[in-house]
Every structure is written in C-alpha cells, then in structure tokens.
C-alpha cells in the first residue's frame, strides 16, 4: 500500500515537474485542421486555410513556419491536413509539425509552389502606385536610395503579422532619423494588399499612427496601394502570395531590399529582426557611395 502511495506520489511529482517545465517554457500545443493553399520551400512556410483553433486563432488563411524541411517536402498545395501547432514565447513564435495528410484530392487544382520571381540583381519594373497623399509614385522614383519594402493591409488583425511589420519599420525609421546622411540615402515603402479598403486617406491615417503623427516622415516612408491589376504585377515581381477570403487577406510575409539602382538586393520572409533589416538598408545605401568612389 505504502509502495503504491509512494509510486503515485512520485508519479504526481513527475507530472507536476512536467507542468512546471511546460509553464516555464510557455510551450502550448494545438491541433490545426485545414487545407494547404501554398508552399514556399525557400522560406520554409505553408499557407493554410484552417478551421478555428480554440485558444489560439480563429478560422483564417495564413502562413505558418515549418522547421522540418523533410516533412514540408511531403505536403503539397491542395492537401487537407491535420498538424500539431506549437506555440512558444506567449504566441510570438509558432510553427507546424507532425503532418497528417487526410486528403490529396485537391492537389490537381492547386496553385504551384511560391517562387521569388525576380532574382537578386534584377531590376524592378516601374509599376505605378498611389501613396498616402493620393499622388502617383513608381519604384523608379526612389532611384539613388536603397529602399526597404514590405507588404501589409491595414485591417490585418494578427499582431505578429502586419502590425509587427509596420511597428518594426517604424523602429527603423526612428533610428534613421538620427543619422541624417543615411536618412537621405534610404527610403521605406509599405505597400497594401487591399487597394479597395486601403485608399489614400486610410493609408495616411495608418501611416501617421506609425509616424507618431509626424507627417514629414512621409518624405522617408511611403504607404501605397496599387490597382488590383498592378498589385498582381507587383506580387508576381516579388513572388508574393495573397488572396482575399471573407474580408481577410492571407498573404506571405515578405520584405524586399532594393539597391539604389532599383534592383533586388535581398529578400526576407519570416526570419528577420529590425536590426538586421536596418543594417542591410544602411549598408546598401553606403555601398552606392563606395561604388561611386571606385568609379570616381
């Protein structure tokens, strides 16, 4: 009897230890059920249209990181899957693992895997956009400056997506203000996936919120949208994936750095920090001066 009690005490303590460890690491596990809409093997991402995940996320379509590259190879767009969704650090980091493909019948009608269309060093086509002031702008307008571009929509409700991107761009902008030389050699550009809702006044209001109401900041950071046809051309140029579903836009998380000559210098997907982006932007701006120095 006492042996049984000891065993149950030990089992209880072990369970308690496990709970404590789980609480300390903040790891939570959920089950995701949904349909794979897109796969980006380069970025290690799956975009999944999923059902409600109680306690984590309402039903929506969004990209998820997949660390297990071998598992990622097995899953294709169009597949219906169940997967474990692991969330750590209070939901700031999460990924999918342990895929169970429940149907492959959708593969034939699915879109091909995402590929970045423009290769590094290729020039960006001069596609027109409308900025927060209602003024037409083109990628070519920023020649002579290194440009960091990201893609959002203002109604995005997921804090780890568009609000994070805009917040981190704001951080970079605020840092660059402190170094006028590099401020003048760089530019930030936020492009909306949602031209129907994100009109110039909406973009202006959104931009001002991230610029602490300093409208002069628009000289260094444009917020723009393009008509749907041109937006599709922009998406094709940078290999972006996006689609509208129930008033929500699912999109890949991409950041692009352009050289002062208007060529693609670098892509980022989900693995980046504001400091890394800022360093790359500054280096790109200064490398132009270096190149001039060599030529001159």
């Amino acid at each position, binding site marked *: 009897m006492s042996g049984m009690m000891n065993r149950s005490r030990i089992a209880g303590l072990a369970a308690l230890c496990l709970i404590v460890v789980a609480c300390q690491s903040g790891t939570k596990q959920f089950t995701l059920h949904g349909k794979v809409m897109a796969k980006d093997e380069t970025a290690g991402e799956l975009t999944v249209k999923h059902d*409600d995940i109680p*306690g984590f*996320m*309402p039903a929506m379509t969004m990209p998820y990181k997949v660390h297990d590259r071998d598992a990622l190879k097995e899953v294709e767009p169009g597949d219906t899957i169940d997967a474990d969704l692991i969330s750590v650090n*209070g*939901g*700031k980091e999460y990924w999918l693992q342990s895929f169970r493909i429940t149907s492959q019948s959708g593969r034939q009608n699915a879109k091909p895997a995402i590929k970045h269309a423009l290769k590094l060093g290729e020039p960006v086509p001069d596609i027109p956009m409308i900025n927060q002031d209602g003024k037409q702008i083109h990628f070519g307008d920023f020649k002579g400056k290194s440009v960091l571009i990201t893609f959002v929509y*203002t*109604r*995005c*409700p*997921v*804090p*780890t997506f*568009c*609000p*994070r991107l*805009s*917040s*981190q761009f*704001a*951080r970079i902008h605020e840092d660059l203000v402190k170094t006028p030389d590099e401020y003048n050699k760089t530019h930030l550009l936020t492009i909306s996936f949602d031209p129907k*809702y994100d009109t110039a006044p909406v973009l202006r209001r959104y931009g001002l*919120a*991230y610029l602490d109401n300093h409208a002069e900041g628009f000289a260094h950071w444009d917020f723009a949208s393009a008509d749907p046809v041109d937006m599709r051309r922009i998406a094709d140029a940078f290999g972006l994936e996006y689609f509208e579903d*129930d*008033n*929500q836009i699912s999109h890949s998380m991409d950041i692009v750095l352009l050289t002062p000559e208007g060529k693609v210098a670098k892509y980022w997907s989900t693995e980046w920090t504001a400091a890394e982006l800022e360093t790359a932007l500054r280096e790109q701006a200064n490398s132009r001066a270096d190149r001039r120095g060599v030529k001159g």
Partner: protein
Amino acid sequence: MSASSLRVGIVCGLSVSVWFLTGCTASHEHGQELFEFHCAECHEMPNSDLKKQPPKLEGLFRSKALPSGAPATDDQVRKTIIEGLGTMPAFNGRLSEADVRELIGYLHTLK
C-alpha cells in the same frame, strides 16, 4: 418569519441568482468568444514587437473616458471597433452588427 418560510426564501433567492448568473453567462458566451478570438491576443498579451501596447480592456466602461480620451459610450467603442484607431486595425467588414453588439455586451462585463 418562520424557519420554513426563511428556507423557502433562501432557496428562491439562490434559484434566482443561479438563473441570473447562468442567463448572463449564456448571453455573453458569443461575446466572450469574439473577444478571445479578435481582441485578447493584442489587448491581453503584452507584445514588445508592437509600436504601441494596446490597453487592457477590463473596466473599460467603469471610467467616463476610454484610453483614447473619448467618452466611454457604446457608440464610441463601436466606432473604434469598426473604424480602428491609431495602430488598432479596423474590423470593418469582419464583424457583423450583431457581433459588435455581442462584443460590446461582453466588454461591459469586464470589471
């Protein structure tokens, strides 16, 4: 008052309380669900990656003014939910009128 009538009174009182509590819970269940899906991730979990920390919503209607300084009225909260405010995204088109009412109803219960 006899002991038996006191007992009946207590039982009735308890029944009414239970009915009231369960009735309230049921009517705000959807509002709570909406809150957890759409609001809690920003308003309840601090996120240092965001430019501005969204305010906690407990006691939202207990003060006269919202964190923005606007009057703490249903209409003002409805406007904020639909149109967004500052870095808070607009929920225009994503929540029905009925959803917004349910959500505001639940926000009233947060003490």
